[in-house]
């Protein structure tokens, strides 16, 4: 396990910085149900951090705590060295956090381009009148934002479906568009909720490459939830393992793979 704030370089030449986000003793309850129980871990700048665990382990809840959607009853979230107060979703977005969803949440009737454009909302400052008349500041802003979106379209290699309504696209491409929309917000921290769920091998390989490229080209820190162990072990720098709301492992893929608790959780050992 790594500790301290020192940055280091990975075997493949990427620089991992100091701690960006720290979860301290998080407990989250829904009524009497304890979804997350006293979990602590951190996310370092520039790394790919995975959260894994069997169904119902509390992974998505954890991601929702990171994204600020849920406020834990106990514990603290520290972001960039400061304790984070409870926030509205748009305030989280302004802090540089973007996410994708487990079940795709795109505007089905809108084109790929327009969907990704919605990710730029935070960069549009022109007033209502200016936007309605598409004049002055609004026009200039649209051009700038379109440029940024086109770079993402190029990056994700979806030029051929730029004008296609999202509803007509196959699942794998929708996932890619959703990643595009998250990227459009130029996040510092990108949260991916099961980016490979329901994909075939080829689509998984494509998506893995895009995740690595995002991390590499834009220097984005990535936290992801994923079921496919092969993908997780290949992609991530460090892995948190959850089971029944508790943290049962944390470390590099190799450390986690050899952790007895993790093996038990995945192979199924009777719980007390």
């Amino acid at each position, binding site marked *: 396990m790594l500790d301290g704030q020192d940055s280091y370089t990975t075997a493949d030449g990427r620089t991992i910085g100091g701690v960006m986000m720290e979860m301290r003793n998080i407990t989250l309850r829904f009524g009497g149900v304890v979804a997350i129980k006293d979990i602590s871990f951190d996310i370092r700048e520039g790394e790919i951090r995975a959260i894994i665990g069997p169904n119902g382990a509390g992974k998505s809840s954890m991601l929702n705590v990171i994204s600020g959607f849920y406020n834990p009853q106990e514990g603290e979230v520290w972001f960039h060295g400061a304790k984070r107060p409870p926030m509205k979703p748009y305030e989280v977005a302004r802090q540089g956090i973007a996410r994708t969803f487990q079940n795709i949440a795109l505007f089905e009737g809108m084109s790929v381009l327009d969907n990704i454009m919605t990710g730029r909302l935070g960069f549009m400052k022109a007033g209502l009148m200016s936007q309605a008349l598409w004049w002055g500041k609004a026009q200039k802003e649209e051009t700038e934002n379109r440029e940024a979106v*086109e770079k993402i*379209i190029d990056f994700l*290699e979806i*030029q051929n479906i*730029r004008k296609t309504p999202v509803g007509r696209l196959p699942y794998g491409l929708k996932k890619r568009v959703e990643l595009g929309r998250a990227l459009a917000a130029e996040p510092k921290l990108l949260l991916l909720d099961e980016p490979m769920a329901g994909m075939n091998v080829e689509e998984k390989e494509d998506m893995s490459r895009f995740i690595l*490229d995002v991390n*590499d*080209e834009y220097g984005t820190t990535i936290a992801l939830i994923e079921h496919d162990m092969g993908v997780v072990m290949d992609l991530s720098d460090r892995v948190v393992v959850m089971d029944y709301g508790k943290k049962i492992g944390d470390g590099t893929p190799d450390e986690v793979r050899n952790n007895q608790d993790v093996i038990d959780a995945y192979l199924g050992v009777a719980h007390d």
Partner: protein
Amino acid sequence: MTATPEGDLKTIPALLARNVRQFGGRPAFREKEFGIWQSWTWAETSEEIDALAMGLIALGLEPGDHLAIIGRNRPALYWSFVAAQKCGAVPVALYQDASAEEMAYVLEHCGARFVICGDQEQVDKVIEVQEKVAGIDQIIYVDKRGLRKYDHTHMNAYADVQAEGRAGHHRLEPVMREREAARGYDDTCVMLYTSGTTGKPKGVVLSNRNIIETSKNSASFDHLTEKEEILAYLPLAWVGDFIFSVGQAMWCGFCVNCPESQDTMMTDLREIGPTYYFAPPRVFETQLTNVMIRMEDAGRFKKWLFDRYMAHARKVGPALLDGKPVSAGDKLKYRLGEMFIYGPLKNTLGFSRVRVGYTAGEAIGPEIFDFYRSLGINLKQLYGQTEASVFITQQPDDGVRADTVGVASPGVELKIGDNGEVYYRSPGVFVEYYKNAESTASTKDAEGWVATGDAGFIEEDTGHLRIIDRAKDVGKLADGRMFAPKYVENKLKFFPNILEAVVIGAGRDRCCAMINIDLGAVGNWAERNNIAYASYQELAGHPQVLNMIQSHVEEVNASVAEDEMLAGCQIHRFLVLHKELDADDGELTRTQKVRRGVIGEKYADLVDALYGGAESVYTETEVTYEDGRKGAIKATLQLRDAKVVETAQKVAAE
């Protein structure tokens, strides 16, 4: 067509300099990037090429070196050809979808010291090749994505090479000018590898004379000017693309447009609206199939209108295009059709402005050919080869027919050999096969005549050339009757439902066929007829699909039987293959031509079953996925008998 005396225009760089003087402000290249067409004028193009050439000299590119170019159609790669020539080096283009193994052969054979790659995918392949092939000194890449962490001791970004060239121009420009001036008319312009229907690819050396004379002749044949627009989307390594996008573009000074990606080709085609267009028959076929599928889904009134006006277009369209007399009523009706049907349709297809369109490489179905011509698109056929710098024959504007490949191109002489093989001689005839004197000698004789390898004849009254088949494929059946597989295969492939066909029969008593269905057309047909299928294999084996294919085969038999010479080529039995023939499996060449030998060996069990008389056959086929991994497909195929037409005249078996 030019003010400059032709004596000076002996190299591509010289043509570039002429274009800068004459058309400096006109667009030379466009590429769609980030959703916008970016363009470069001739003056800007020249500056970019100079910067690259000087950068390459700084990196140590020497005269006579070979520089390999791999990637999709992008201005940066077209500039690489000219920059290499400015350095006195020889550019060699490689097929971008070739596997590392295939590239290794070509890179080793030409001894490339420098390789310019489009993107990471190509760089990875070249690095893989480097493990086996020594001598690759520098890799240059255009698209930086994903390459930041690679070892850069012998690798540079294209833009960085240019930056270095610009920075050192005081020192490097004189060197470049000197090397440029040293190149003559008979020096090598480019080296292109033949796709290799048989055996290993051969490096065809084409001189400046070959390329420039051919470009000049063919441009004047079709009255091409600096105002043409073309879309460059065919493989860089194919001689046709080199002639159109470099040779003719440089000679005429017209604009080359590069699509955004392979998948956006159709959108980009529509946006550019080329005036001069080339496509293999397959592209025209696919487009027509798509139009027809979409019309099937259209409302009844629209469908009725479309059918009615298309029938009229088929009646008078070709005549109007040829300038033949047509009645005033028909003309008026055609004009109405142009307004409501043909015009919008051409616009959708991206053919609104096409003045000269060519198709070649394979025979095109007469229905397909007539469809485009009836819309008023001047689609013509040409016949060519890498060894001829493309042009051997082409159709003049007033002599377009579906069944010939046209008259000899300007400057080309034709003759037919004793065995029916077509020979030609022209200024475009290649210099030699690189490092392969033996093949050069067997292809080109001392007087400069080149064997095409195709059997054909020249029509006496019109001078048009007709091609029957590959000379080596034309064989005999066991009873001595003529066997021309391609002739029958083409007839089969003219049905939209049939993508590919392989006819077998040389040395046997009768012919049999293996057929590939077209997933787009048959899939749509299945959908409309409520036929459920889960995979290509299932659809291909569906009894109703087999019935449909059988009716196509029987139609072909009836048509083949009409020709006495070829009546023996009727198909007695056939099967529908469980997988598409694929270049990755070695069954097709990279230019999508059937490799008979490979298929015959690979599917030997199926061929035996066809001649053995069994009702069905179980088979396992190895397939190669795009990433090089292998797998196997298992299937039980049904074999069908097809009706053949008995011909009255029996050829005596000797």
